[in-house]
């Protein structure tokens, strides 16, 4: 589309004209984004087809990569998904090379990265959307630690024998057994299950429960299919310590399924205050603490509107509603503190940014025209996801366009008024921290609700097929220090005090050992010797019930190759028979009495 064409299209949007005219009258702040799509080479395929997005670091190099879930691309079959590897100054699509192009007819909607085997890298669960071409099965890919994947779909039992029209998915430890389970929507073989009327309930198998040994059991856990589902979100909605599921539906009302703690679900939308209106065509439900009161509120988008619900002691009450932009029915909205003022702002995918007034009320906020044009000129915007791809501490936005080029908006706010928290390993021993809750308080006031500065829960895919970066982002005042309370899904808590803004905090359920060093030594007998590397470390005083340490060699990037394990009393290990002129990298992790493995400490031996 030519630039002139872009302008003409914008002028067709009355809401935007109104914005330009009235914006000085009610703006309380401003944002500045830059469209860096071309610069970073992340526009997607020329035949388009993007639906979903995941921001995730697949190769453990510390930089966020980008996975685009493509489907229905101008009739192109076997359309590949895109895996943009972030090389710092440019992205490169390596989906095929790395084994996750997932090119099956007729493409992918839902997909989520999660550490399915607790080996501290992100594996992939990717759906296939049935379109009258069989087989149309979902796929699971195991990451080898370097961002190369192997298809382990055959590990699902019983084997898939029906095509599925999967859309949104969810990943979390639903049954609390220490591994990530998978849920997918629309487990039925209908090419277009878009009826305007709810279906009689069908008890279809829609969970792949993780057996903890690399295999999955395909089963039904209480979520009936009663009509077409778009987006799926999985968070602890009722704050009872397990992960619940919310589904945005078309014919039946969008609803919430509460977890009984053992991974079995029952429908509870009506009792929680959700409307029972049918045929609204909701596309996504996004949960976040919009009023900084420590619980999850939500917005539901679709049917040309965004309805916002506040959580009032466990019951949701709608208190705000906005129209979506132009003819866009609205697929996804996401919440992030884009302006670092301490509350979560709202972005409608392919639409406007709205600033939070601190009470959960959203007001249009001005955006520099070029970035706004890039957002509004998306032809058929679907998902959008938030990630700090350039590592400058703020939230950037990637927008999927089903019928146009995707857009990457770089947030240009230049300050240190932010704190990011990354969960290196959680109560499962895996990375990502899905289900982990984080409360940020003003320094010295931990646990005092009046000083709560933000509450986040880390999740996988949410809203409409979006997965934000697997880290919590807080906007804060630079002049203060902050205390952080972390609660893992099993209820265990950690506290980090006196956090100074402008930094990324890394935490873990089991923290890495400290003071890890590696020293080359010669292990001598009288007539022979070997070069050894002596690893020494100290127990982390914040860990409890550590039973052993595991030692890994790191061959490439951060791929961990198991070497050995020693009892907790041993704080030294010798790597035997090493080469004196080779650089080595080693990692050491602590493992507790329940065999949960913590985050690694690394050491490079020159």
């Amino acid at each position: 589309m030519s630039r002139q064409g872009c302008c003409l299209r914008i002028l067709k949007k009355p809401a935007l004209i109104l914005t330009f005219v009235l914006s000085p009258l009610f703006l309380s702040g401003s944002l500045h984004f830059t469209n860096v799509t071309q610069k970073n080479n992340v526009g997607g395929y020329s035949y388009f087809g993007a639906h979903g997005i995941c921001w995730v670091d697949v190769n453990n190099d510390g930089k966020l990569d980008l996975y685009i879930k493509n489907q229905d691309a101008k009739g192109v079959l076997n359309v590949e998904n895109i895996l943009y590897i972030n090389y710092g100054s440019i992205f490169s699509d390596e989906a095929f090379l790395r084994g996750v192009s997932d090119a099956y007819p007729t493409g992918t909607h839902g997909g989520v990265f999660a550490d399915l085997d607790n080996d501290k890298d992100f594996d992939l669960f990717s759906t296939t959307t049935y379109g009258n071409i069989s087989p149309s099965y979902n796929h699971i890919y195991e990451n080898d630690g370097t961002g190369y994947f192997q298809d382990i779909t055959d590990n699902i039992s019983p084997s898939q024998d029906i095509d599925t029209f999967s859309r949104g998915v969810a990943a979390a430890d639903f049954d609390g057994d220490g591994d990530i389970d998978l849920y997918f929507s629309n487990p039925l073989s209908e090419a277009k299950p878009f009826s305007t009327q709810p279906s009689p309930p069908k008890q279809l198998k829609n969970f792949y429960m993780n057996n903890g040994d690399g295999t999955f059991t395909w089963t039904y856990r209480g979520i009936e299919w009663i009509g077409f589902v778009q987006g799926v979100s999985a968070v602890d909605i009722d704050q009872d310590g397990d992960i619940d599921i919310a589904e945005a539906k078309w014919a039946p009302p969008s609803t919430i399924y509460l977890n009984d703690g053992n991974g079995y679900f029952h429908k509870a939308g009506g009792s929680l205050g959700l409307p029972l209106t049918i045929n609204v065509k909701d596309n996504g439900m996004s949960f976040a603490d919009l009023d900084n009161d420590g619980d999850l509120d939500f917005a539901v988008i679709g049917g040309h509107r965004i309805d916002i619900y506040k959580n009032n002691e466990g019951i949701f009450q709608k208190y705000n509603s906005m129209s979506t932009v132009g003819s866009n029915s609205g697929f996804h909205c996401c919440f992030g503190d884009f302006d670092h003022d301490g509350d979560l702002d709202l972005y409608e995918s392919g639409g406007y940014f709205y600033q939070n007034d601190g009470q959960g009320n959203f007001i249009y906020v001005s955006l520099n025209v070029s970035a706004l044009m890039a957002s509004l000129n998306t032809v058929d915007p679907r998902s959008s996801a938030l990630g700090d791809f350039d590592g400058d501490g703020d939230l950037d936005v990637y927008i999927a366009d089903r019928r146009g080029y995707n857009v990457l908006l770089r947030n240009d706010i230049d300050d240190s008024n932010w704190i990011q928290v990354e969960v290196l390993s959680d109560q499962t021993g895996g990375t990502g921290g899905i289900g982990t809750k984080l409360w940020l308080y003003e320094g010295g006031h931990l646990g005092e609700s009046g000083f709560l500065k933000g509450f986040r829960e880390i999740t996988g895919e949410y809203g409409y097929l979006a997965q934000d970066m697997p880290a919590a982002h807080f906007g804060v005042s630079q002049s203060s220090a902050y205390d952080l309370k972390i609660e893992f899904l099993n209820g265990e808590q950690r506290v980090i005090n006196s956090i100074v803004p402008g930094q990324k905090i890394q935490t873990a359920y089991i923290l890495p050992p400290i003071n890890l060093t590696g020293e080359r030594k010669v292990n001598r007998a009288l007539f022979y010797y070997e070069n050894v590397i002596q690893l020494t470390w100290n127990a982390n005083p914040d860990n409890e019930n550590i039973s052993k340490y595991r030692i890994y060699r790191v061959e490439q990037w951060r791929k961990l190759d198991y070497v050995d394990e020693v009892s907790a009393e041993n704080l030294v290990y010798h790597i035997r028979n090493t080469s004196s002129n080779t650089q080595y990298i080693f990692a050491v992790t602590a493992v507790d009495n329940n065999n949960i493995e913590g985050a690694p400490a690394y050491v490079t031996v020159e």
Partner: protein
Amino acid sequence: MLYAGNEEIKSSRLSVAGGAYFMQDEVFKEVYGDSAWVFYGEYSYRLPFLLNRHIEIGVEYRFLSDKGKLTVTKEEVDLAISDFTLSLRYLFDLKRFIIFIGPGLDYIIYKEKYPPTFPVSSTKGSVLGFSFQGGCYYDFSSSLGAKVCVKYSHAQAEEGSVKADLGGIGIKAGLVFRFNL
């Protein structure tokens, strides 16, 4: 059969002794400690035809066995050294005391065994060396006596790039049985 004056001199001696060996190799000291116990057995014969019977030749077998620990990993290693010495000694007869001094040629066989975690299971080899010893016999009777001796050995073993100095000082004491063949 030899005679010293009217007394019959039994020309053969068989001695058994024990003692300590202080190897000078620094790695040995680190792995096995400063010294190791050593056991000796020797047959010596006073030659009747040289220097008025003041020359003795001896064939000695020495056995050293010790357990040590690798320098870094502190795993146990075993060392065994067998040593055959052909020596030539000059004897000074002082009634019951007989002082001797002289050089020797050593043939040393060694074996060191390592733990399974080590790159090799064992090292075996042999090396020639020389030694010099001095000491004295004390005769309790015509058939039984005692012996004390200090022996300095020099031998350099080489296994690949590793050089081991097997030399050092050995101190031993034991019993001597005198007889004629």
